């Protein structure tokens, strides 16, 4: 049992903790920062180059359940996102290759604040389990209110030809009812 095991997504086995400040940890942090800045700058094609071609990208629903049933608070049947590499690339194509992706045109102004990063090895050589917190602020049009999307990312990053790629992302959101009108943005 490692320190972060209780945070892991159901299908990712976690091994040794990767020490904060180690080279590997810093590489992961560099990846997450670069990814956040590409998404916030709406450089979606560059962002998509960070994705492994066997990517699985999911965002479960949440339900309000009693303390004793917290496992049931995460719903992985119907989800908010249930995508693979191909469908994510389809979404990127809609956003970048059409003139009518109105949900993000004009685009939201976003900040992805990624913190509380914990890294561990997995049973698979070259793959890392990365748990981080995400606070995404979203501003649209002339509304002074920010939509807040908060959650925990449970990622698997993989070294491919010396570069880290995102192979698995599950985002455990905190809201049972989302306070933003759509997820036309990536988390």
């Amino acid at each position, binding site marked *: 049992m490692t320190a972060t095991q209780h945070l892991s997504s159901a299908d990712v086995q976690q091994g040794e903790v990767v020490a904060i400040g180690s080279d590997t940890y810093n590489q992961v942090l560099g990846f997450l920062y670069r990814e956040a800045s590409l998404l916030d700058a709406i450089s979606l094609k560059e962002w998509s180059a960070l994705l492994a071609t066997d990517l699985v990208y999911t965002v479960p*629903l949440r339900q309000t359940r009693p303390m004793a049933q917290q496992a049931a608070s995460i719903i992985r*049947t119907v989800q908010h996102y*249930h995508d693979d590499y191909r469908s994510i690339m389809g979404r990127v194509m809609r956003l970048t290759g059409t003139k009518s*992706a109105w*949900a*993000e045109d004009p685009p939201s102004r976003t900040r992805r604040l990624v913190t509380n990063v914990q890294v561990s090895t997995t049973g698979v050589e070259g793959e890392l389990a990365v748990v981080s917190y995400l606070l995404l602020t979203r501003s649209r049009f002339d509304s002074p209110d920010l939509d807040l999307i908060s959650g925990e990312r449970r990622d698997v990053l993989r070294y491919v030809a010396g570069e880290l790629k995102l192979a698995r992302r599950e985002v455990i959101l905190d809201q049972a*009812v989302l306070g933003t009108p759509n*997820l*036309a943005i990536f988390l």
Partner: protein
Amino acid sequence: MKQTRNVLADGTSIEDLVKVDTREVQMRALSDHEIYNLEMDRVFGHSWLLLGHETEIPNENDFVVRDMGSDSVIVARGKNGQIHVSLNVCPHRGMKVSTLDAGNTPIHKCIYHGWAFRPNGDFLASPVEKECMHGKMMSKVELGLEQARVTLYGGIIFATWDHEGPSFEEFLGDAKWYFDILFQRSDKGLEVLGPPQRFIVRANWKTAGEQSAADGFHTLTLHRWLGEVGNYAKSGEEGGADLSPEMYGVEVSSSNGHALRCIDLGRKIRKLTGLDPDELSVDQKLEALPPPGVTREMLPQLKRNLSKDQLKVLVSMPPQVGGIFPNVLFAFVYIPQADGSVLGLTLLHAYVPKGPDQLEFVNWILAEKDTPPELKEKMLRQSIQLFGTSGMVEQDDSDTWPHMTVAARGARGRKSTLKYQAVYETSKPAGWPGPGIVNEGFTKDDTQWHWWLHWHELMLAKV
């Protein structure tokens, strides 16, 4: 007396919100608090409301918490499998009895003073029974949770507070013949593929409600991207393909505000078979393109459960999208795939009012119970990718409605009007077997207009 009830505080009469001659609706209807409050009684208090599907609560004592208009309700399965809908308000001191989204319990106990209720809403007891904390002035029978009138239709749970009003069948009216094609066609019926997605849109519920009443035109512009990339797009066309061929079909409405867009399947069947659809029999068309969630093995079920006339509509001009008054959208859509095949999807949305400028979008994804697991999985994923929270089609809708709602608050904007002046000059196609107000051709505004007329009728408390 009735006259004064139909005048708003500033002297505007509800009658005048809708201009029948010119088919206009005053935009203040989308933002006004007073109108909203009246709607909660006159529209939501007198309509059958969608709460979910019985497969969400398959076992005795299962429950989900949902909304009927502005009221929270507990939808629970009690003894003998019966489903009960109880106002989620403790009759003692008004605490919300269940603060959860879902679960299983034989007793719903209020955490404030401990009054306890059965899944059927019956008052069981208060703590320290011998001290009779609930007093002796009212009997236990009188202290139960307020019960709504419940019906199941194709397993879908509907409820109303109007105990003396129309039956669910009467409520569906002419539209029932068509809804049966969708909801009553298989032996075992539909099932949910999981709990619903839920998210808030800062828009009046009617922006979504009136669009659900079969707004065809918005597809051309708001969903234009469908012609620009992906499987509807035709290569070589500058600026994307023309979606207008998808706008032809038959539109059906009823005086009860329900609406259906029946879209011609001919082009899809021609593409799949290479044959002229007019030359094909009903059986051949069913084989070529079975409806959403239905496999070829399941086709005998359709023939058992539907009439010949209903089958004829299903294979040629099936209802694909539309609304159940007041706040439900249904979609039984046929989505072209990259490999040339077609995948059918089945969805239900409820647009729950959360104040004059906010709605909760509740999205259920369904399949037939008999749909094979691999097909269910495909339907589930593509439904998530195209509809609901992150859906590439509906994310454009939920970004549009808030602007209308804000506009309807302006001093001039609230006096502007929504216009429904594209009027059908055709009528039903020759030999059309179904009832209702039926028109064929390029989409028009009639179905949405009939939605507003029914809203108006309820708001005037005429029914």
